[in-house]
């Protein structure tokens, strides 16, 4: 192995990242579906023959972190020694390295003088992969077979010749073959770009320099990550959190438990104690589960670490068989995104024990998906309108949370009101921050929002997939929990109904749907928040006027909007005495679920 000089190594790092970014661009650009083009639900990366990522595009953390597992399975089934130039392979089987059926991975070998040096991979969320409902994420699925076409690792191209049998099979099993095949070709285009660029670098710098650089960059990321992890006190840190339910047994909460062990520079997570797999589609297989571990290792280590899989070599994971995080075939998995977010919350809670003062309180904890579908009574044409929503982030040990933002595995835009109303028989009656939804604390959790839709004509079916309606996002270090999510249907005749987080509902013209997205947890004792900031929060609608007194023990003069120092001091002293001094608990899930 040759030693690469530090300048060349840094140039190589930039080159690999630029290649990945160009692949990512090609993937998004040349795809057809709205999900990929606008939801950016796709990721591209370069891997070693050992399925370690060398560089990845700027994709959402939840996507990029799970890709290696599919690459690994393809390389096990089709060993690199036997791959040839012009080959490509694909797969989506969640029980054989995949995530959920819509996520299809394509792997292309990079062959130089008859040797496979590396592989490039592109994963896209196909807008449809068959199964019982359009879009292939049926919330009421009870087995994998209802979720769509299952593709084990298969060869898609053989030295440039397409596997027409496979393509024909795919075309016949999806609802929108043109779009799906378009996306698949986008994945192949990304592979072609990666191949061309990577070989260009090999031609310029020579095979040996390139291969040595890869190894040295992976080793460097490992060393730097280990150095960061070594600073965390050794120990096992346990935390639990819950999903509302699995969409089928609505009254049964689903527990996720993780024991994070840090020993020296090794990072291991054991999910023993997590509830058994569920009947509904919230089961989460290996790839999407370990993604959260990878994201958290990245979040708590030096941000200048090269972004490759060397940084994750010290991660170990144990998942009990037959559990929510290691389901048995053929348990349904399509809605595992909700579970991924909760897994992230559990790791976060465990790390909050390991790294006091460095980890935020819980985020709102959900990416809510709402879709309205109906038939236009005038034209008879069907319409579908969908939207993803987030709540507030958790408060940080040094600052407030951010309103209406996610800092975890997802990152997706909302839909402008002016686009919703123009395109569909809906009117948005309000869309503003949900005052007081952020958990109280020395630093306040971010607020969620309130949005009300009214159906203007005909009938519409609302498919609602959410979570965190039951167990609130926890406050940390004395901070209070954020408000849980809530959705309410207000029928035209005046009756209202609080709806569960998962389900399908019917609206008629004049009915309204009110969405309340959750707040992030607070951080630190609310009695320590500066009274001036509490008064400003009232003025700026972050909290309700009465919360100044109830949550923060601050008396605000209603005329001047300024805090009254004497009365505030008195009230805070009383409150502190009643609570027995400084808070003795770390996590606060509210009166119903308690403190610990």
């Amino acid at each position, binding site marked *: 192995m040759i030693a690469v000089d530090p300048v060349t190594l840094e140039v190589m790092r930039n080159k690999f990242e630029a290649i990945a970014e160009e692949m990512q661009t090609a993937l998004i650009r040349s795809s057809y579906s709205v999900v990929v083009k606008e939801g950016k639900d796709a990721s591209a990366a370069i891997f070693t023959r050992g399925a370690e990522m060398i560089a990845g595009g700027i994709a959402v953390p939840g996507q990029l972190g799970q890709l290696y597992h599919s690459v690994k399975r393809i390389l096990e089934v089709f060993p690199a020694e036997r791959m040839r130039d012009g080959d490509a392979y694909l797969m989506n089987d969640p029980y054989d390295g995949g995530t959920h059926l819509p996520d299809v991975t394509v792997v292309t070998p990079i062959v130089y003088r008859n040797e496979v040096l590396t592989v490039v991979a592109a994963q896209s969320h196909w807008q449809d992969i068959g199964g019982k409902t359009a879009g292939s994420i049926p919330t009421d699925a009870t087995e994998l077979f209802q979720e769509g076409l299952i593709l084990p690792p298969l060869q898609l191209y053989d030295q440039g010749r397409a596997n027409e049998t496979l393509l024909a099979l795919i075309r016949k099993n999806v609802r929108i073959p043109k779009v799906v095949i378009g996306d698949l070709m986008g994945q192949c285009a990304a592979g072609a770009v990666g191949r061309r660029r990577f070989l260009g670098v090999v031609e310029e710098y020579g095979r040996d320099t390139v291969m040595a650089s890869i190894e040295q960059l992976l080793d460097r990321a490992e060393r730097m990550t280990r150095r960061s992890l070594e600073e965390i006190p050794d120990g096992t840190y346990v935390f639990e959190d819950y999903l509302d339910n699995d969409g089928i047994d609505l009254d049964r909460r689903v527990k996720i438990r993780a024991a994070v062990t840090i020993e020296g520079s090794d990072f291991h997570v054991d999910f023993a104690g997590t509830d058994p797999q569920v009947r509904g589609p919230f089961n989460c297989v290996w790839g999407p589960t370990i993604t959260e571990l990878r994201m958290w290792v990245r979040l708590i280590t030096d941000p200048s670490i090269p972004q490759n899989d060397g940084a994750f070599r010290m991660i170990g994971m144990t998942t009990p068989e037959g559990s929510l995080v290691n389901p048995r075939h053929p348990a349904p998995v399509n809605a595992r995104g909700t579970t991924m977010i909760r897994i992230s919350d559990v790791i976060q809670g465990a790390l909050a024990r390991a790294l006091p003062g460095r980890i935020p309180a819980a985020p709102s904890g959900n990416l809510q998906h709402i879709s309205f579908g109906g038939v236009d009574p005038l034209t008879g044409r069907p319409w579908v309108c969908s939207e993803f929503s987030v709540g507030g982030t958790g408060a940080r040990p040094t600052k407030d949370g951010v309103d209406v933002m996610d800092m975890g595995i997802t990152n997706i835009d909302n839909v402008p009101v002016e686009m919703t109303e123009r395109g569909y028989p809906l009117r948005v009656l*309000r869309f503003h921050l949900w005052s007081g939804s952020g958990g109280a604390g020395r630093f306040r959790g971010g607020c969620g929002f309130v949005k009300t839709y009214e159906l203007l004509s005909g009938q519409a079916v609302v498919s609602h997939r959410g979570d965190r309606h039951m167990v609130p996002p926890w406050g940390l270090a004395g901070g209070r929990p954020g408000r849980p999510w809530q959705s309410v249907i207000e029928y035209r005749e005046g009756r209202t109904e609080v709806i569960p987080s998962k389900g399908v509902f019917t609206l008629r013209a004049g009915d309204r749907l009110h969405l309340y997205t959750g707040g992030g947890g607070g951080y630190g004792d609310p009695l320590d928040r500066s009274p001036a900031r509490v008064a400003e929060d009232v003025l700026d609608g972050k909290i309700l006027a009465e919360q100044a007194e109830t949550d923060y023990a601050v008396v605000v003069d209603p005329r001047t909007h300024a805090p009254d120092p004497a009365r505030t001091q008195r009230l805070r002293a009383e409150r502190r005495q009643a609570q027995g001094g400084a808070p003795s608990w770390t996590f606060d899930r509210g009166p119903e679920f308690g403190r610990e």
Partner: protein
Amino acid sequence: MIKVGVDIGGTFTDIVCVRDDRTLHGAKVPSTPEELIRGVLEAVDALVETTGLDRAEISELAHSSTIATNAILEGKGARVGMLTNKGFEDVLEIGKQNRSRLYDLFLDPETPSFIAPRRVRIGVDGRVDAEGRVVTPLDEAGVATAARHLVDRHGVEALAVCYLFSFRNPEHERRTRDIVRGLYPTLGVSLSSDVMPVAREYPRACLTAFDAYIRPAGETYLRALEKVLAGYGAGIRLQIMLSRGGLSSVDRAVRRPAMMIASGPAAGVIGAQVVGDEVGIADFVSVDVGGTSADIALVTDGRARRTTEGRIKGYPLPLPMVDVVSIGAGGGSIVWLDSDGGLRVGPQSAGARPGPACYRHGGVDATATDASVVLGYLNPDYFAGGRVRLDPEAAWRAVGAIGERLGLAPAQAAHGIHRVLNARMADQIKLMTLLRGHDPRDLWLLVAGGAGPIHGGPLLRELGMRGVIVPRTPGLIAAYGLLVADVEHDHAQTVHIPTMAVDYEAINGLVAGFDDAGRRELGEEGVPAGEIEMRATVDLRYVGQSYELEVPIECPVGPGAMEAAVSAFHEAHARVYGHSMAEDPTEILNVRVTHVARTPRPAIGSDGERRAPAKPRVHRDVYFAEAGDYVATPVFDRHALPAGLELPGPAVLEQRDTTTVVVPGQVCRVHPTGHLLISQAGGAR
């Protein structure tokens, strides 16, 4: 009758003019951020002093200023209040619910709610639907109460009004302005339907808020400058560069002050566009390398690429802007080692203060400029024309310290720093062009800014581009752009209709209205009717998509013109996104009309008229990787080179505002216009 261009930048204020001797004259003076007008006058004085120009000869001053951008970057704009529909007060604060940094637990909010926090955003009753029909009438009493509250209680100095669907029906916004004017006749009011009547409430609210935010300062500044100039010499008329790269009268600029955002970068790209035209090159990337950043822009078919998805500090601005991508790579980029001893360059910059170690301002970190000194690219006694005396020992010390930790000699470390910086710039140029559907290998590269011409050669080789253009005065490119920019006006409106069901009468009515307004406005600026050109474009998309592409359309619009526009859209989609869907239905989101009055190009004499022999000033030791060592390299006075001359590398060309390095294996040719063209020797890419 002489026109001057004055560009206020972060560090320097530049001025240029072309005189009867058909020579471009320029001067640079330090910017005066606290008192910008003084800087403008000092620049004029400097020009008068260096060229012996008579003040009274100056009749026009075309200007780009940091006034708007500074107010935003420093958070020093007006106290703004905002009126919205009731229930939508937080549109400005919620934004798009996304984030720009994916792995950061401590990131800050990414929406500009600092302009108008919730306490000064008030919702009023009144609602218009997607068709522009009034669903709820405007609560006029509520408007008056809100305005009183904002002004009397919160001391608001400017008001932003952004109601839903005001681009369809602006009546509620206009009525609001009338009510407010009735109460506070001098209060500045920005209506979203005036600032930019296009769909999507969050970007429109952002732009309207920024418009109000910079309105008082912008207006005060422009009016004061106008007044000073009117009394200067024989009276000077002022023109302002707008973000789309066209000039405007002061009257129009103060009506929509947001259009002055990023006027300096726009002027720079227009300058580059004209230089390209002068050397007969229509397709190129311009990269302007300054102290802290490299600004990358694309010129195709001789026109700078515009975007309506611009940003400032990450905030969306749905304003026609010259499309500039900025990366943190420049002369001041700091060299550092990561925790494993890996070499990194930027994006942090030492800026102008303390600046590179060699600036003698107390900087100790090695920067790219220090590396340039160590490599022998820069003449320590002739940096910025000798205005800044560099300290070569400090540069060697700083770069040497990095080299020691990497186990490299100072020269190797310095060269490594340049290799890393060049790689970063090359990667960004590649991504920028590919994303817009162009392959960099088909393009030329124009290098501008004080530091640009040092990097041209390595970038040319790295990217395999066609060649490098070094303008006559790379450090004065924005000021030159001001001199040669056209006067432009634009109007836009969201219509949101399927292309299959266009009401041609309505569209043509809209265009005719814009045409009348544009011609009237240009007429008021003194442009003769015969010199006005009109261009119309439409933003098209496939039904169901949420992004558009702008394509030209012929007027009056009829089925033929529509069909041609749709087919141009399919082509553009194929170029930018790799495929098109010829059978899929399309829709028009926006109609845009631009009026242009061409500015005559000043005649600049060819350097070929000078017959100086190409004799080097001196030979200097310059490090080239090709030689693996320092090489005695001829150093030329750039302005003494005769046209048609071909200079093989290695060579260094010095001039007041920059230094050009010609690397071994490349050839530099002096174009008759005085611009330089560099290509690989033997025509090899």
